[in-house]
């Protein structure tokens, strides 16, 4: 069972469905195995696995150009690696996409010691990409807010999935 206060994979899937997502372009991160099992068993979702996070950006742009509604699922480490692809293939081409980004190293308690967490929000602010933090099911409506903002602005919007209360690995 998911931990109390966790963000459950079922909630994430429900948000995808509610917002009409057709394709998930993704690279596994350390927290998403149960989500993967749910997504891969859903006949209405196509999974496009990539070998480097930056590849997800141009694939997503192509899917959108052809009329699909893709979503990106990666970890913050890969997002940092993907900066120029985000700039060129998403922001520069007005691609309205939500990127669900695993927030490795994030904690609301004590001191953040993982450098990728230290730089994650700074990276997003430098790129002027709006973002929302989601830690548990009660925050899940922020995912729909992100979809609406992406549609309205025709730009990518990031949802950071706080790691601390994750319910993805049962």
């Amino acid at each position, binding site marked *: 069972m998911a931990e109390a206060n966790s963000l459950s994979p079922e909630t994430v899937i429900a948000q995808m469905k509610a917002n009409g997502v057709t*394709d998930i*372009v993704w690279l596994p991160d350390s927290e998403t195995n149960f989500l993967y099992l749910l997504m891969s068993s859903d006949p209405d979702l*196509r999974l*496009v*696995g*990539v*070998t*480097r996070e*930056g*590849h*997800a*950006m*141009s*694939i*997503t*742009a*192509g*899917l*959108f*150009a*052809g*009329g*699909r509604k*893709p979503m990106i699922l990666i970890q913050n480490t890969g997002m940092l690696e993907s900066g*120029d*692809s985000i*700039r*060129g*293939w998403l922001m*520069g*081409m*007005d*691609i309205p996409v939500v990127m669900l980004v695993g927030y490795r190293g994030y904690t609301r308690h004590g001191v953040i010691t993982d450098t990728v967490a230290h730089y994650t929000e700074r990276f997003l602010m430098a790129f002027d990409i709006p973002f929302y933090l989601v830690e548990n099911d009660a925050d899940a409506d922020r995912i729909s807010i992100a979809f609406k903002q992406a549609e309205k602005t025709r730009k990518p919007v990031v949802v950071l999935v706080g790691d601390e209360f994750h319910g993805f690995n049962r």
Partner: protein
Amino acid sequence: MMHTSDLVAAIAKHRGDAIVISGRGGRHWIQHSDTALDLPLGDPAMGGHAGFGLGLALAQPKKRVILFDSEGDILMSLGQLPTIAEQAPANFYHFVLDNEVYATTGGQPVPGSKVIDYAGIAKSSGYPRAMNFADLDALTDALPGIFAAPGPVFVSCKVYPEVENTPINQRVRWRKRSAAQVVSDLRGALGVA
């Protein structure tokens, strides 16, 4: 070696109603066609054209998608090849213009350019069909067969480099539309806007 202008002219004869991502052949392709189904994206971020082609081919399975990629792009994102092979879009025709140099930065050699077998890499990555061509006659003869069979197919072609060595902001702009406009035009033409 072949001239890129001759290569795109040969492929234009087989285009039909395909969507064409003109990529590294863009300045020549625009001489043949510049409709909403022609996508001169410029260089949004090097290495990503193959991924864009994959996404578009998956989204529009009833339309052929032709891409003019380059060997420099391929080497930047080799990991896209197994992703394309796994998704196996039957409508994807992936041409690679291999000029052995980074032409837009002055013609510096691409690492390994004299020894790499690009079709071999594609085939090992899972493309069901992959081939190399060094001259235009052989490519021209093969094109009917290339387009007669389903993709994904990977076709690497040796082309003469067209080296540019002026600062980017001083170059003549041949594109008439921004990349965002190109995408918007395509979506309108496909009825998915």
